[in-house]
C-alpha cells in the first residue's frame, strides 16, 4: 500500500517534470536560447524609467525600484500588508504567551562567552550600516526597502543567539516591535498622499501614489538636486519606511520563534486546564 503510493507520487512528479521541460523548450529538441528582444511592456518600462521627454516618467535610474514603488506602488502597499498578516497570524498562534512569559521576570544572564559577545557588538553596527546602505541607495543600485530590512533583521537574530532572547525583549518587546512595524506601514500610506495633499492646497488635482508629473497634474517631488544628487522623488521615503517596517516585523517574528520551549508549554497547558 505504502510503496504503491510512493510509486504513484514518483510517477506524477516525473510526468510533471517532463511536461514542464517540454513547455519550457517549446520547440521539441531545439536548444532554448534567450531572445534578442524583451517584451513590449519591458520596453515601455525601460524607456520611461528616467526620461525627461515623456510625461509619464518615474525619473528614477533604477527600473526595478521604480516599478516596485511607482508604477505598481499600490500593489506593493498591499503586499506589505500580506507580511503584516503573517505576523498577526503568528501572534495569534502564540496566544499572548510572549507577554506573560517576560512579565514573570527572567534573568538576562547566560549566553555565549565574552569574546563572542564583544565581536557581536562590533558586527551589529556593521550589519545595520550595510542594511541602511542597501535600503537608502535603493533608487540607485540593486536593493531597496525589503532587502535592507531583511539584512537589518539578521542583527537581532545574532543578538538572540549570542546573548539571550530575554536580552532583546528587555529592549524591544513584541508589542513595541509590532507597534513600530505598524508605524512604518502608516508612513508608507501617508507618503502615498504627499503629492495629493500639496496639490489640493494649491488648488490642483493629483493622483494617489503620484511621484512625478502626470498628464493633467503638474505636481511632483523633485527627482534630483543639482546635477547628480539623485533622491528619486518619493522612492527614497518609501524605501526608508519600508526598511523600518520589514526590520521590526522580522524582529517580532524572530522573538516569537525563539521563545523558550519548556516555559511556553507550561503556560499553554496551564491555560487549557
Amino acid at each position, binding site marked *: 500500500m505504502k510503496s504503491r503510493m510512493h510509486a504513484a507520487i514518483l510517477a506524477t512528479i516525473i510526468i510533471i517534470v517532463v511536461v514542464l521541460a517540454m513547455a519550457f523548450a517549446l520547440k521539441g529538441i531545439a536548444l532554448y536560447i*534567450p531572445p534578442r528582444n524583451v517584451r513590449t511592456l519591458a520596453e515601455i518600462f525601460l524607456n520611461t524609467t528616467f526620461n525627461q521627454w515623456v510625461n509619464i516618467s518615474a525619473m528614477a535610474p533604477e527600473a526595478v525600484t521604480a516599478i516596485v514603488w511607482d508604477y505598481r506602488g499600490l500593489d506593493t502597499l498591499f503586499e506589505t500588508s500580506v507580511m503584516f498578516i503573517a505576523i498577526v497570524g503568528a501572534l495569534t498562534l502564540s496566544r499572548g504567551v510572549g507577554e506573560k512569559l517576560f512579565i514573570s521576570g527572567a534573568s538576562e544572564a547566560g549566553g555565549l562567552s565574552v569574546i563572542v559577545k564583544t565581536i557581536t557588538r562590533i558586527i551589529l553596527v556593521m550589519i545595520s550600516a550595510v542594511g541602511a546602505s542597501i535600503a537608502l541607495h535603493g533608487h540607485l543600485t540593486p536593493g531597496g526597502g525589503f532587502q535592507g530590512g531583511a539584512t537589518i533583521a539578521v542583527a537581532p537574530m545574532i543578538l538572540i543567539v549570542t546573548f539571550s532572547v530575554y536580552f532583546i525583549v528587555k529592549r524591544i518587546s513584541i508589542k513595541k516591535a509590532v507597534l513600530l512595524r505598524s508605524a512604518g506601514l502608516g508612513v508608507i500610506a501617508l507618503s502615498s498622499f504627499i503629492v495629493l495633499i500639496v496639490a489640493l492646497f494649491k488648488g490642483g488635482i493629483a493622483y494617489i501614489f503620484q511621484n512625478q508629473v502626470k498628464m493633467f497634474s503638474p505636481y511632483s517631488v523633485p527627482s534630483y538636486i543639482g546635477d547628480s544628487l539623485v533622491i528619486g522623488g518619493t522612492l527614497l521615503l518609501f524605501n526608508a519606511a519600508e526598511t523600518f517596517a520589514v526590520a521590526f516585523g522580522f524582529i517580532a517574528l524572530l522573538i516569537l520563534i525563539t521563545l523558550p520551549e519548556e516555559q511556553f508549554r507550561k503556560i499553554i497547558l496551564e491555560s487549557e486546564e
Partner: protein
Amino acid sequence: MEIIYVLFNIAVLALIANIGLALYGVFTRPSLVKKIIALTIFSDTINLMVVLIGFRHAEPNPVPPILISIPPIKEDIITFMQKAVDPLPQALVLTAIVIGLAVILYLIFLTIQIYRIYGTTDVRKIAKLKG
C-alpha cells in the same frame, strides 16, 4: 558560442529537476521541517525561473536595468533599451521573496508551536491527535 547555449540549457534542465526534487520532498517526507525545507527549495527555483524569463541576448552582454548617466541623454536611453534585461520579473520576484520569507517564518512558527505542545513534527502522528 554554441557551448554557452548548451550550458545555459543544462542550467534550465537543472532548475526543472530541482522542481521535481522539491515536490518529492513536499509530498513524501513525513517531517514538517523537511517539508518546509523542500518548500523553500521549490519557491527559490520558481523565482529563479521567473528571473530567467526576463533574460535577453545582447552584444557583448546584457546589463542590469539601471541607468548610469544622470541625467541621461537620448542616446543613453536608446542603448539602455537595447541592452538592459526585463525589469518587471525582477520586481515581481522581489516582492515574492519577501512574502515567501514572511510565510515561511509563519510556517516555522506553526511547526515549532506544534512541537512545543505535542512533542512531534511527524505528520502521521499529528493526524491522529485528538484535541
